């Protein structure tokens, strides 16, 4: 089923709501999960997989496909939920996340259909995506390569090695998205290692930059679909998000980084998501 066909029967907001609900369920499992950073990138993933990416779960190895990499691999719960909703793996399998014998590890592995490369150690995805984009150019495909970076991840020097290379190689079929939730494990990025003015930093490296609301899936889809925004330049979308978005008792808190939801908090979270669904 193509991306367009998927879109016809659903809205991005309703898909995002289902993905959010899966994430909450997974983080109530025995091992818990990276809840806050998973919830912050739901709309980014939804817009990519349900509106932008040219991928087909029936032909996951199509050499001309668009490629997506979750460089902030700790948001695996969000990727698994998205891939399941998109048909790469059964939705029922999400219940296996973190359980002994499951392929759904705490960081994405290639054994999971739709996962291009294993990620988890931060600072790897942008160089890999440069390689994807370069390979697409060599092959003469008009495919694009997308990579989602965490904002804390930008503290890794290897990100900037790749940021330089992407510009010097003129990889305009490469699109990076920064999940700018402003928080890392122990606090705000601005207290620990200030990143602002973030857009200027990327611009200074030679990237085409857009700075947008990271929870408006329709707007995200529009921007991402339109890339490249400037000929000959890679694009970076700074998605302003909220860590733990959708759960009022965790949203905007660093403590949402890794959570094993108790039965009580699982119920609270489910209730909160239901209320916010009703509101939208």
């Amino acid at each position, binding site marked *: 089923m193509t991306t367009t066909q998927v879109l016809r029967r659903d809205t991005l907001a309703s898909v995002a709501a289902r993905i959010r609900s899966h994430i909450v369920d997974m983080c109530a499992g025995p091992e818990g999960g990276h809840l806050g950073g998973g919830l912050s990138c739901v709309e980014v993933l939804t817009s990519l997989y349900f509106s932008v990416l040219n991928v087909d779960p029936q032909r996951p190895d199509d*050499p001309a496909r668009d490629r997506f990499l979750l460089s902030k691999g700790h948001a695996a719960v969000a990727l698994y939920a998205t891939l399941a909703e998109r048909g790469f793996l059964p939705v029922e399998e999400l219940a296996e996340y973190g359980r002994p014998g499951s392929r759904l590890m705490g960081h994405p592995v*290639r054994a999971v259909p739709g996962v*291009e*490369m*294993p990620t*988890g*150690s931060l*600072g*790897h995805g*942008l*160089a*890999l*995506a*440069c*390689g*994807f*984009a*370069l*390979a*697409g150019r*060599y*092959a003469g495909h008009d495919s694009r390569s997308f990579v989602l970076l965490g904002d804390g991840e930008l503290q890794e*020097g*290897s990100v900037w*090695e*790749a940021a*330089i*290379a992407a510009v*010097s*190689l003129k990889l305009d079929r490469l699109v990076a998205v920064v999940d700018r939730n402003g928080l890392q494990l122990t606090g705000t990025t601005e207290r620990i290692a200030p990143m602002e003015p973030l857009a200027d930093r990327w611009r200074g490296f030679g990237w085409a930059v857009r700075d947008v609301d990271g929870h408006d899936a329709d707007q995200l889809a529009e921007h991402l679909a339109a890339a490249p925004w400037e000929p000959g330049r890679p694009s970076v979308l700074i998605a302003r998000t909220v860590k733990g978005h959708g759960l009022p008792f965790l949203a905007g808190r660093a403590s949402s980084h890794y959570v094993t939801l108790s039965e009580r908090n699982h119920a609270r979270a489910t209730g909160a998501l239901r209320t916010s669904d009703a509101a939208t």
Partner: protein
Amino acid sequence: MSRATREAYRDSLLPLLDGHPDLICLDTDTGLFSAEHAAAAGEQYLNLGIAEHNLMGIAAGLAACGRMPFVNTMAAFATSRALEAVKIDIAYNRLPVRIMATHGGLAAGHLGPTHHALEDLAVFRVLPGMTVVVPADAAATETFVEQSLSIEGPLYVRLGRKPSPPLPAATPPVIGQAQTLREGGDVVLACCGPYPVLACLTAAEVLAVYGIEATVLNLHTLRPFDTETLVAAARPATLVVTLEEHWRDGGLGGAVAEALAEAAPTRVLRLGMPDRFVDEVGNQEHLVTHYDLTAEQVVRTVRTALDTATDRKDITT
């Protein structure tokens, strides 16, 4: 005429590019490829700048899309600076990236410990699925470059910097198969790399004068390790001595000791760079001599060990 292994690599890769459009040569401004070389390679050569993690990451991305990248950096940087990208992006995904690591061992000479690689073999040979080879001369390098096209998964090739001493002609080595350069039943001299192989061949000749017959094994492939040939050579022998341009632990000596401990327990004496960083200026030849990675040390070690063994036998009988 002796040639540097790194130049042999470059000169054997360039003619292969035309017939193999999937090959791509990625550089980190090492200077090995001149403007003329780059022009000859056309779009199949890219200088990515001085960024070794980035080099390995881009190579992995390309390889995941069906390309076979040859990546150029120094052994020191491939091993320590870029190791995480090598481990996670390349080895974990079993991708066919060819890591062409120049300045292996002490080849960087006077440039000092920041540019020496005395741990690379230990590091690379523990990575699952990694093939690790050390050509002993330019001819072997050319052979390995050609053979590398049919090797599955990642490959690490330790190269030198300057021309190394010429070696006696031998049948071309095959990746994965130990090369028996001389046969003798008393001791086995196991080695890899230009200077150690030459030293062991010289040592074997000297030992023969003392009535000690040595097998010389060029164990150019550290992974997959040719345990079978090693064990066959070691069975009749009373002693195995290893020599390498590498810290004593974890490299060839480690591989030999591990293999023999499991398959054919034999006394193994490991010779290599002492447990310290280089502390004086010298070119590769000087440093190899200064730290006694020499035929003399091999002879001394064998003779002392055999004498001691004989003495012990005399005492016990």
